[in-house]
């Protein structure tokens, strides 16, 4: 296993662990951004360049910023109250451990996983564009529609309802 892969994996997992366990919400959001960049680095090592760059653009550049704005707009940036965990947290951790054990066992002992590594695929932007325009053109159009609907929906949900018709532009990005 190349050492860079192990380091990237550890950074990603540490970022995710910190994102879920810190008390201060803004620190959680920043740890999540670190986890996303770690995942983007993993994509780059798996020869998926376009997806890696798109991950940084979409997740770190847009979704992390959205989450941070929402933390500020809901005034959750200050110190939290006594407990940050829900009442049934032990069951949650137990179920998550079970999920991981099952998945790990399945991965390590599966016979469906090929033993030899195929050569690196050629995922140039031209091939991706061709695939998007010929084989996957219907999902492309549908995703345009879904994104428009989500954008309009998010703006309408987060709109301030008061008598004076004032529009606010929060929550409507991406």
């Amino acid at each position, binding site marked *: 296993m190349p050492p860079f892969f192990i380091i990237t994996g550890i950074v990603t997992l540490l970022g995710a662990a910190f994102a879920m366990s810190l008390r201060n919400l*803004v*620190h959680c959001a*920043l740890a999540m*951004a670190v986890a996303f*960049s770690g995942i983007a680095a993993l994509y780059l090592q798996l020869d998926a*360049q*376009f997806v890696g*760059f*798109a991950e*940084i*653009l979409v997740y*770190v*550049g*847009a979704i*992390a*910023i959205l989450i*941070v*704005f929402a933390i*500020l707009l809901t005034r959750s*940036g200050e110190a939290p109250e006594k407990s940050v965990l829900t009442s049934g947290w032990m069951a949650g951790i137990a179920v998550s451990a079970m999920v991981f054990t099952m998945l790990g066992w399945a991965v390590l002992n599966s016979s469906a996983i090929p033993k030899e590594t195929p050569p690196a695929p050629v995922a*140039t*932007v*031209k091939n991706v564009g061709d695939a998007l325009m010929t084989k996957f053109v219907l999902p492309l159009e549908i995703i345009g529609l879904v994104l428009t609907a989500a954008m309009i929906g998010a703006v309408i949900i987060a709109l301030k309802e008061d008598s*004076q018709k*004032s529009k606010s*532009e929060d929550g409507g*990005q991406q």
Partner: protein
Amino acid sequence: MFDKFDQIFVTALHWLVSFLPEGLRPFVSALICIAFVMSVFPGVFALTTVLERKILGRIQNRYGPNRVGIPFTKIRLCGFGQFIPDGIKSLTKEDIVPRAADKVVHFLAPVVMLVPVLLAYAVLPFGKHMTITDYDAGLLFFFAVGGAVEVSVFMAGWSSRNKYSLLGAMRAIAQMVSYEIPLILSAVTVVMVVGSLNLSEIVKHQNNYTFGIAHWHVFTPWGLVGFILFFIASLAESNRTPFDLPEAESEIIAGYFTEYSGFKFALFFLGEYLGMFAIIGLGITLFLGGWTSPVSFLTWIPSYLWFLSKLMTIVFVFIWIRGTLPRLRMDQLMNFAWKFMLPLALINILVAGIWHYMAADWPRWLVCSAIIFGAYAILGRGLMQNQNFGKRIYRYAE
């Protein structure tokens, strides 16, 4: 013979790397390229700070700095040595961290700003065969790391626990996100016509000459509009006047880097200017022909000198605009981005498509120019009509 001058850096790199065994070559080559970028662009940054002060001074009818030439001597050099004492001052000032500040985030914010900005230089073609990493999706990489700068702006503003810093950071992020869209859409027109996201490919596409004039994208109707939109959006992305509300001294003291002093402030300043150079470099690559020369009888000048001179010309225009135009208010800025630049960028994409599919003759110039001019007139007139210059309406935050 002029080819040798042109490729002198590439041959030097290959010669230096040839001394090493095969395994180490990529790493050492990368290190030498990093050293090149880290020495040239901060040097250009130092020159630009002095140039900016002198040019702004002349625009404001005064001299800029004109005393400091070479330190410890009497040689004045018209004040171009000013960056040396400025740099020493920034490095030796006391590093004040507010007591209530979030120490780790406060420390990391300048670093998180500088790293993506320096990464962006990896895909710019500085000369012929002089791109550090020639990614297939190079343009997407550039915009991705541009988006990562916003996280650092938020980190700086929030960790200072200062309401002015936070306000400045929110405004800066809103501005950067709003202007990213016309920036990317005006770059999309170039991608459509060239057919590739690879930046070297885009420059090669502009390397043909008709009647001695190069086929730069800026010499086409969609390219001219695209370049103007890209230029305005890059002014906004670098937080330069007239879009510098988030960091202007008379508005919000210094915005998101109010609580930074000493070396961290110097890092922010460096990061901002390097970001400006990177985005101007991208604009040059996309619209102004990158490292190609405008006229065919001047191709003997080395390609990197062309890139550098175009960069300094656009930096001069940036400084000129800073000295000339007043600042835009936040809502005027957002209106401009969403209601004027975004529709114009979308219409520009349509025009680029029409250009690509019409025959290469004079009708397509007429049709494309007519559509763009009509769109500009309608949008401009339409938006100016909605301006009510009457009594002001106040909306309070809650």
